[in-house]
């Protein structure tokens, strides 16, 4: 469906520099990067390197847990940003219901997907930590159980987003579901905690609150690194979602215009359809007339 790229390759293959010039037609080389996101990416990489040093080398093993505490430097921040992602999805869903602009829908979906990624990391590192500490990969303590349920909630939400229906209907349903995400998380967390607390289990899930020194630094660096990675991923995933929306919209307009053309209307009708759509969506028209349809 896309016409082949019609420029000579510009820039390095990994997308250095700004987007390449757009020649005639709809096709361009491009990517989801921008100067700001590149800076963000560099910072993220730097802080990850710092985390590796602090987490694996410079900080000492714990008195009780020995070296397995090093998994906590990823696990705890990952759990925090998992919740952050859920929060963003709920807020974005609420904003979409109020404003109905596609950006909010894109943000809700992107945030949920990354939250799911971090849920996997949380559960994975948590269970790898549990094995040497408690002797078992899984235990039904409050934290792990609610995280597992939260993962199910996210999987369900993302499944709903993939439906093959009219985009507005899909966004509406997803937004209502997304709006309920944080309330569900709170309810699940509270009830599971209450339930498991009845069994007086002495778990070591909480990090020793008097954590200090190099271990505290490692944890802080962990939060910084995981946070920057989360943000960078979110920016790019949001842009991809935005592009998906644009692509879907353009395909729809093109299909409509082609139908009209088939019905015997001249080519101008195709251009008219495109430009009226652009006006409707508030985007400037900088293309030359007579662009090649894909």
């Amino acid at each position: 469906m896309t016409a082949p790229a019609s420029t000579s390759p510009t820039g390095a293959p990994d997308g250095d520099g700004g987007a390449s010039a757009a020649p005639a037609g709809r096709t361009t080389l491009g990517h989801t990067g921008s100067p700001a996101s590149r800076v963000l990416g560099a910072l993220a990489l730097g802080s990850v390197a710092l985390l590796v040093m602090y987490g694996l080398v410079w900080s000492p093993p714990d008195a009780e847990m020995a070296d397995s505490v090093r998994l906590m430097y990823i696990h705890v921040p990952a759990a925090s940003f998992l919740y952050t992602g859920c929060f963003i999805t709920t807020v974005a869903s609420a904003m979409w219901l109020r404003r109905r602009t596609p950006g909010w829908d894109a943000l809700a979906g992107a945030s949920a997907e990354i939250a799911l990624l971090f849920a996997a990391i949380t559960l994975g590192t948590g269970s790898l930590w549990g094995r040497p500490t408690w002797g078992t990969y899984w235990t039904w303590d409050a934290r792990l159980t609610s995280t597992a349920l939260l993962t199910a909630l996210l999987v369900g939400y993302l499944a709903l987003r993939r439906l093959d229906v009219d985009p507005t209907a899909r966004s509406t349903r997803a937004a209502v579901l997304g709006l309920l995400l944080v309330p569900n998380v709170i309810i699940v967390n509270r009830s599971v905690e209450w339930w498991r607390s009845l069994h007086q289990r002495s778990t070591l899930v909480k990090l020793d609150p008097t954590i200090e020194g190099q271990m505290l630094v490692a944890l802080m660096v962990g939060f910084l690194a995981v946070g920057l990675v989360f943000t960078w991923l979110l920016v790019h995933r949001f842009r991809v979602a935005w592009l998906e929306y644009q692509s879907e919209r353009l395909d729809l307009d093109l299909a409509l215009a082609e139908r009209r053309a088939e019905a015997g209307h001249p080519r101008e009708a195709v251009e008219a359809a495109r430009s009226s759509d652009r006006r409707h969506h508030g985007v400037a028209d900088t293309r030359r007339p007579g662009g090649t349809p894909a």
Partner: protein
Amino acid sequence: MWRDAALVAGRDLRVELRSRVTTNQVAPFSVLVLILFAFALDPDRQLLERLASGLYWTAVLFAALLAISRSAAIDETDGVRDALRLSGIDPAGVFVGKAAAVAVVLLGLEVLLGIGVVVLYGVDLAGAGLVVLAALAATVAVAATGTLYGALVSGLRVRETLLPLLLLPVLAPVLIGATRAFEAALAGVPADGWAWCGLLAGLAVLYAVAGALAYGTLLEGS
């Protein structure tokens, strides 16, 4: 709104009564689930009796999935949804009506399953007050939540597979609360169970309100 709700509830219940799917299929299915548990676990009656509360509510949840799916299906046939929108019936009324119908159906199933559990698992009924109130609160919570989520998946080809995936994690707290309340009642220490009953009531109210507010948006936007 209440008149609209009664109207819709009446319609849903009449559809169910006429089609008899609930009595002929859902009810036997739920008893079958109880029987399957006996196959899966040691039919040594002590084990089943100890686990009865949890098994009971699990069976209720599975039956609820079917009941809610059928409730959603009523509005999927040609033009019913548009007719609802155009008729001027308050969407909150539609929600309350549908949820009420589901609740009635569920209560019937729960009584049946209660008999099943007493007979098949040898449970001694005790703490009747707590049992009844907890069951009522849990039923309203399940019906309200289910009707809202039913609307989320209504009209979709994948409704039957998506509904359980969306609904069961959300109902996990209801399962926890209802089971703990029943366990407390049956063990003769209802004092522990009333707090859980409170949780169930809270969830019921929460989802009733959420559903009433959101139903309009869902009816419009789909």
